[in-house]
């Protein structure tokens, strides 16, 4: 959970984290509870399934699930950073922090 650890630093940089997967909100609630709470919203790309992931070209049709990725959008709504990750790999927190810091 990369973003739980760096969320407060991202807030200081005027950034809002949004978690996204195609799980139902009920699953999100159970999951965030199991983690002891998550300090940012978890969104459900559930209906129609994967619609937003597809709009971002981050949908794995075979798995029927989103592709692991980080997309950073600036205050004007422009994509400024985009990285995808193979299964078993996670975003590097320092890379994400540096990318957000570079926006300000």
């Amino acid at each position, binding site marked *: 959970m990369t973003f739980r650890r760096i969320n407060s630093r991202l807030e200081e940089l005027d950034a809002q984290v*949004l978690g996204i997967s195609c799980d139902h909100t009920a699953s999100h609630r159970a999951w965030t509870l199991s983690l002891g709470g998550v300090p940012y919203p978890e*969104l459900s*790309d559930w209906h129609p399934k994967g619609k937003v992931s597809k709009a971002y070209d981050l949908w*794995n049709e075979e798995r029927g699930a989103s592709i692991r990725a980080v997309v950073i959008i600036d205050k004007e709504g422009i994509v400024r950073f985009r990285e995808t990750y193979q299964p078993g790999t996670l975003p590097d927190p320092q890379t994400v922090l540096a990318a957000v810091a570079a926006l300000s």
Partner: protein
Amino acid sequence: MAAEVGSVAPDFTMPSANDGDISLSQYRGSKHVVLSFHVLNFTGG
């Protein structure tokens, strides 16, 4: 490719677990947004 660096991010509205519906556009002009796409809950991905 959709949503590549330098392009306008596609707007969306999605239900959240605990905070109601959230739209990307609600942060326009006030916050940068970090989208963390993940595979499925409980998978570590």
